[in-house]
């Protein structure tokens, strides 16, 4: 049984990553190949030729069809083999599975699980990612660590003070009480930390130009299993959000993560930073891109290290939870519930489909 929930949407790629060529990417243990048709639709097929298992992502795209780079089996966008080398007869079983994909908010989502159960209405939203009111920088880092470690990492921002001191962490982050909420029906965890008089970390002083102390709010919204949103609000100390009207005295940064399991010990870490100020300022863009990449890499190094520790300790390691872990514990519980439910649904669908 895999450690990730089945029958869920996962971020597979950024829209801009899928253009003229073939993109190979393993999502939840499935090697997939992605491409874009002449009409602009994204296609996802199993990345293994039925003939001798050659990766289709290392093949050629011709007229919206993949021509296997080994012996030339040719597949259309539904995965059906439409041509085999030097013969007219194509075996009826010659097809590779196709996956349901959907582009939304500049992300390519793929449904992992029973394809008949895919429901596009359930994809969580991050509209700022392709809004003209925001400027976005983004990247993707592959982790050599299981995805639950990245969930843990992002649910508890107290680690900013220690792992990211000098970038995004200041003493107040680890010292401010947190409110945690869990929506049992929607599978959302919300963790909120509002610092009303805090030091301004360089990440924000350099990008916003604020000098002196700030009001810093961090509101985390985690849509299990794949989308993580950190709504960050920064303003000069004392300027709070107005009860009504636009919050135009504050700077808003939307930090977004796609947390996508690749294999049991590898994760795709899609990170995006969107801001609603200095939209055309290239220097700010460059600064946020470079700095956030540094912060992401600090986490990557730490999580890769943790994975090594966990693997060497096998099942018996002990850990201790304290108050800062309240949100992380809630996320784990929801994931465990979704893993169990996803397995159940797939089993159910198979039973129904059986003759």
């Amino acid at each position, binding site marked *: 049984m895999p*450690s990730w929930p089945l029958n869920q949407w996962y971020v597979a790629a950024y829209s801009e990553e899928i253009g003229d060529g073939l993109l190979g990417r393993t999502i939840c243990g499935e090697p997939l190949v992605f491409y874009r048709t002449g009409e602009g639709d994204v296609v996802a097929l199993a990345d293994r030729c039925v003939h001798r298992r050659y990766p289709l992502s290392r093949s050629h795209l011709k007229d919206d069809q993949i021509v296997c780079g080994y012996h030339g089996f040719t597949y259309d966008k539904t995965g059906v083999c439409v041509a085999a080398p030097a013969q007219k007869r194509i075996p009826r079983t010659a097809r590779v599975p196709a996956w349901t994909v959907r582009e939304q908010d500049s992300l390519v989502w793929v449904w992992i699980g029973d394809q008949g159960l895919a429901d596009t209405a359930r994809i969580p939203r991050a509209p700022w990612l392709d809004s003209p009111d925001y400027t976005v920088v983004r990247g993707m880092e592959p982790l050599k660590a299981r995805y*639950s470690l990245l969930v843990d990492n992002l649910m508890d921002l107290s680690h900013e003070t220690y792992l990211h001191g000098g970038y995004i962490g200041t003493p107040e982050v680890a*010292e*401010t*009480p*947190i*409110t*945690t*909420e*869990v*929506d*049992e*029906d*929607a599978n*959302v965890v*919300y963790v*909120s930390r509002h610092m009303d008089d805090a030091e301004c970390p360089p990440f924000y002083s350099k990008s916003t130009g604020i000098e002196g102390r700030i009001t810093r709010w961090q*509101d985390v919204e985690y849509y299990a299993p794949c989308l993580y949103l950190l709504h960050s609000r920064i303003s000069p100390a004392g300027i709070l959000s107005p009860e009504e009207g636009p919050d135009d005295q504050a700077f808003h940064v939307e930090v977004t993560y796609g947390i996508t399991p690749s294999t049991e010990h590898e994760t795709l870490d899609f990170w995006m930073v969107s801001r609603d100020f200095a939209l055309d300022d290239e220097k700010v863009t460059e600064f946020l891109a470079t700095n956030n990449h540094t912060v992401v890499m600090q986490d990557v190094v730490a999580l890769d290290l943790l994975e090594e520790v966990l693997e060497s300790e096998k099942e018996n390691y002990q*850990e201790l*939870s*304290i*108050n800062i*872990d*309240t949100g992380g*514990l*809630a996320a*784990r*519980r929801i*994931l*465990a*519930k979704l893993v*169990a*439910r996803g397995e*159940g649904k797939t089993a159910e669908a198979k039973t129904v489909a059986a003759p």
Partner: protein
Amino acid sequence: MSSPDQVGPAAPVRADLPSPTKMLKGRTVYRVVWQLHTDVLVGYCWCGASHEDIDPITLWEWLLAHPDTHGDSRTDSDAPDPEPELVDM
């Protein structure tokens, strides 16, 4: 941080906590509020019942076990949850 002898399981743990600000709007939202310097967590069930603890795991266990006393109020949910349990992953 308070030392354990100031706030222990045997001591009354009620702290002067601000009433929680509602963030999620769903029907079944659990809420846990923590105030620093007390080490106390207060959990609110979506029915309004509350419970205090100084250990997040024990508090979640209470919150998740608690709706059993609500009778049938959740059976209208289309996908009943499996038994709630805290996992150590």
